[in-house]
């Protein structure tokens, strides 16, 4: 199952995939902090299914798969942002969009005459098969989101904690929420290419959820979350290239293992706080 004899050569081949995964791990970990604070895990899943539909549609008509995935993501993200300002509305809209997106994607794949290996890649991850130009696009998108996220960090934190007070202070809540959904949509579109539509949460939610278990510091949580995302994504690829299994299970397993360890450490930490209090 594992064969690391040609590891060096393999590594050179997938170098760009590793860079893409590294950037995504960092961005996913960072945006995940807000996904948790804004209670949007379900939205991430909903967006990823429409992103999958977009990518499958692009595959069918022979367009750029990353572009298709971005279009699907953005449509879902903006719809959810506009129609689902309140959590309750949001969940029902996502619940309606998600099966529609998944169904549409399956339809496109069924109509697609090409190799079936590519097909399932969109659902379960395929980074090694992403070509050079598309990898560049993925990295660019991820870097743009990273920069944008840092630029809106403070107002977005304020808005996530207390939208009414933030609005009273002049934070443009509506635009900020919509902007956040766009950033989330872009991140999901990149993730779909790397880890697959069904497993996006492993990079966009699990690292942040793990970090929040062990810290409440506004500096440590994002840093830890980025580190966890990075280790999961890059570690997953490094392990996978020596074996015959796809990348995704490695990424999801590492990310889950980190979460478990953080839960155990976190439980001990809260017990100590309670004892000293």
């Amino acid at each position, binding site marked *: 199952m594992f064969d690391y004899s040609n590891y060096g050569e393999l590594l050179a081949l997938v170098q760009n995939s590793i860079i893409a995964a590294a950037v995504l791990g960092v961005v996913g970990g960072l945006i995940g902090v807000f996904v948790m604070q804004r209670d949007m895990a379900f939205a991430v899943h909903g967006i990823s299914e429409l992103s999958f539909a977009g990518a499958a549609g692009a595959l069918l008509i022979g367009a750029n798969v990353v572009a298709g995935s971005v279009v699907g993501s953005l449509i879902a993200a903006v719809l959810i942002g506009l129609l689902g300002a309140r959590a309750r509305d949001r969940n029902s809209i996502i619940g309606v969009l998600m099966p529609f997106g998944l169904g549409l994607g399956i339809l496109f794949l069924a109509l697609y005459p090409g190799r079936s290996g590519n097909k399932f890649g969109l659902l379960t991850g395929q980074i090694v098969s992403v070509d050079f130009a598309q990898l560049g696009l993925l990295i660019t998108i991820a870097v743009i989101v990273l920069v944008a996220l840092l630029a809106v960090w*403070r107002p977005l*934190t304020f808005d996530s904690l207390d939208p009414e007070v*933030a609005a009273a*202070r002049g934070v443009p809540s509506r635009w900020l929420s919509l902007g956040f959904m766009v950033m989330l949509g872009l991140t999901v579109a990149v993730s779909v290419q790397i880890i697959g539509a069904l497993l996006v949460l492993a990079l966009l939610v699990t690292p942040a959820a793990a970090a929040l278990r062990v810290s409440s510091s506004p500096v440590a949580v994002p840093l830890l979350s980025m580190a966890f995302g990075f280790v999961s994504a890059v570690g997953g690829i490094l392990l996978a290239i020596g074996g015959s299994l796809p990348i995704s299970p490695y990424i999801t397993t590492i990310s889950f293992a980190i979460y478990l360890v953080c839960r155990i450490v976190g439980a001990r930490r809260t017990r100590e706080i309670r004892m000293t209090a």
Partner: protein
Amino acid sequence: MSTLAFEHAALGFGNRTLWSNLDLSVQPGEFLAVLGPNGSGKTSLLKTILGQQRLDAGRVSLEGHPIRRGDRRIGYIPQQKLAAPGTPLRGRDLVTLGVNGHRFGLPITSRAERQRVDGLLADVGATRFADQPIGSLSGGEQQRLRVGQALAADPVLLLCDEPLLSLDLQHQRGVSELIDRRRREHDTAVVFVTHDVNPVLGMVDRILYLADGQFLQGTPDEVLQSDVLSDLYGTPVDVIRHDGRVIVAGVPEHHHV
């Protein structure tokens, strides 16, 4: 010049009038309590002052100029809303948001801003728990931090929307004394929306009482009278004074002042 002024202001939703022909001015250092049953337009009044809700008629101005959204001269203290236990913010971060939370750009807090936050934390008696996660703090402690956050921009007007709701008596007193001290020491005007006037009865200069599309204003002694409120509600209402507390009884739909 008055800090806040409404002139012939009116607001309603659909064909229901919340209030109309409202003339109201609040002077620097004045403590105005806004009372009235649920749905009488107390919160909408605050929203017009924040520039988030347009008046149907008339004008509202801050220090003589029309209201604009997100004005830094207004400090806003919301209803106590407990932060989720996992929120990655400490007490001091909540106050820091009041100092620079509206600013875009790299999230770096300068040394001067940090000193300002330390000062605010000391002012509201929150230094002791400043470095604890806000999710682990009590409602009263969180509310002290929110007062500090609202004072961050050195406001000329403090808007308080039921800030004492669901606090115990001791914290009600603590938080309302912070607000009272601020207006005495800095001449900050206070508009304080509440359904229970008792925790702030000793501080209130004037009351605006909203009910059924009507309103009246005056000192607590003028407004909190059985005949005055009976007139306003159009039905017999009893104002009972007992032990320094005021209870309004017989109001249609269950509520108390």
